[in-house]
């Protein structure tokens, strides 16, 4: 052991890191940014607005309870309206004019334990949970005085899917979208960086190849593998292969076997569009990286915020008002929503929400491809 040699090594390491300014910046900025964002969402996150529609099938006793409940919801910052029957209430949720419906049964006053039904759209489990919690608080304050000793049970129904379902149904879309986005970005970012640093881009630009052709070629090449990846992910998520018991081996099944309401092909389309956008994003961001390490360091800046803000972890409705515009400009937001529309709601191409998601994803792909081809010349050699 030589103290001098160790000191020399120590100095060299410190010098290297000090000169790698992007790494240095990210070393401090990225953790502060990400933890700050999480803290902000958790602290400033809004109790979601409850826009309730009340369906009273119980006559006068329900009337009193409905009025009291409505007042409690409005006091909590929400709104309450009435609907003549459950079908109307459901169509209001579907149209987005109400977030939750409450139905008082006809036996509200007579049964010892009447069943009050609460209906949400069921697209986003975390969002539904916050709706239910808010509604429950409002109910607790009025139920005692209105119903006396009776203890009603509250059941939860959803417009799409059934609430008792596998929780994976709701999380799988987010996970499929996220992983495809993440890996495609990482692969293209690093590959294109190699093209820049290995001198091949310099040479390529000295051929008649146009920048747009480079982006198109990359998109097709990586798009092909992304398409395979998506196919495997979707098949894995939706499929189940039952393997019978063979000899001493017990029977088992392969695949997550999630029940999907819509067409797997539509889900596939959503993710492939997301992946195509990610290819160009990788090319674009490789402009700002000099080493592969730096491509990886962009993850906390470009990937993690999307996970936090696109509805993968936190429901969009609970995000603080100020950062909601940010989630509106993230491709993953639309992919996750599009996948939930297909998986949970069973949306087909006639559903407006899905049309919007697809259109925005196409827009992002075109936008990223354009800026990617515009920045290809930067920093060559």
């Amino acid at each position, binding site marked *: 052991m030589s103290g001098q040699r160790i000191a020399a090594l120590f100095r060299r390491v410190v010098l290297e890191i000090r000169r790698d300014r992007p790494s240095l910046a990210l070393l401090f900025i990225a953790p502060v940014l990400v933890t700050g964002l999480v803290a902000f969402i958790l602290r400033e996150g809004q109790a979601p607005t409850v826009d309730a529609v009340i369906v009273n099938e119980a006559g006068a006793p329900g009337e009193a309870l409905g009025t009291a409940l409505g007042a409690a919801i409005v006091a909590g910052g929400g709104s309450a309206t009435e609907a003549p029957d459950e079908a109307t209430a459901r169509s209001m949720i579907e149209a987005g004019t109400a977030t939750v419906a409450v139905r008082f049964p006809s036996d509200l006053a007579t049964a010892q334990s009447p069943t009050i039904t609460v209906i949400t759209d069921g697209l986003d489990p975390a969002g539904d949970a916050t709706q239910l919690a808010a509604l429950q608080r409002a109910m607790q304050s009025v139920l005692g005085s209105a119903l006396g000793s009776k203890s009603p049970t509250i059941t939860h129904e959803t417009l799409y899917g059934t609430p008792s379902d596998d929780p994976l149904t709701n999380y799988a879309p987010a996970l499929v979208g996220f992983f495809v986005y993440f890996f495609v970005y990482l692969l293209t970012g690093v590959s294109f960086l190699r093209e820049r640093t*290995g001198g091949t881009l310099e040479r390529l630009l000295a051929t*008649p190849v146009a920048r747009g052709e480079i982006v198109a070629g990359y998109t097709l090449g990586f798009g092909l593998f992304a398409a395979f990846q998506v196919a495997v992910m979707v098949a894995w998520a939706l499929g189940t292969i039952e393997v019978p018991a063979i000899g001493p081996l017990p029977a088992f099944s392969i695949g997550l076997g999630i029940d999907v309401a819509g067409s797997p092909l539509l889900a596939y389309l959503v993710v492939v569009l997301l992946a195509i956008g990610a290819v160009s994003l990788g090319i674009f961001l490789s402009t700002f990286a000099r080493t592969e390490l730096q491509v990886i360091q962009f993850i906390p800046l470009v990937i993690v915020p999307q996970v936090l803000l696109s509805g993968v972890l936190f429901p969009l409705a609970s995000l603080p008002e100020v950062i909601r515009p940010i989630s509106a400009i993230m491709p993953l937001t639309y992919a996750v929503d599009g996948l939930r529309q297909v998986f949970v709601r069973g949306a087909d191409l006639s559903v407006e929400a899905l049309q919007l998601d697809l259109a925005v994803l196409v827009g992002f792909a075109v936008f990223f491809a354009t800026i990617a081809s515009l920045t290809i010349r930067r920093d060559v*050699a």
Partner: protein
Amino acid sequence: MEANDTSASTGPSPAAAIRADGLVKRFGPIHAVDGVTVELAPGRIYGLLGPNGSGKTTLIRLLTGLARPTAGRAEVLGVSMPSRTILSRIGYMTQSDGVYTALTAAENVGFFAATYGVRDRSAVASALDLVDLADRAGSITGTLSGGQRRRLSLACALVHRPPVLFLDEPTVGVDPLLRVQFWSHFRTLADGGATIVVSSHVMDEADRCDELLFIRSGTVIARGSGDDLRARAGTSDLEEAFLHFGGDVRVTR
């Protein structure tokens, strides 16, 4: 067809394959190329000679259209650079190998042939043959030696038989025997009418060029054949001649 269609261009000497007029490239305060005006004729080998950092590579990048000049203009085969269409008639061997290490030698040459729009499939084989790599055609480039990769890089620059060829330090890391072969290829191509610009900081290669351009601080400080430059400097040594023409003067701006 090769170099003759430059006759369509206007200018003082229509025969020039490459023309630079007051070419300047600045990177912030640094004048990488500082007012170069030259005309290079077809069928000749030109040597860009100068120390590292004298602006040789930047000059080549301006002439190939990879960099945009701060001032002045560059023309290749009568076409103002940068121009994407004329690039199919220019060959450029970069200072780094610029080949894909995961592909085989033949796949590399084939890829660049396709980008140049070469349809003739035998072009790949003959380019590999030219650089003596025919027997390694199927080898993964990453497994080739440094010299072999340099040859492959040359093959990629030659595969479309360009009438104008820029070679940035082509012989670095190439053994002496192969170096002789390289230069005989260059001569054959020039005899066929090609204009070849070779950059080097190795003076002993200079006498293989028809004409030399001494480059210092982004300017051409002298031009002529090796013998001519030596005679004008009154020395038998090119390095001394380089110093004589101002190669030692640090021009401050």
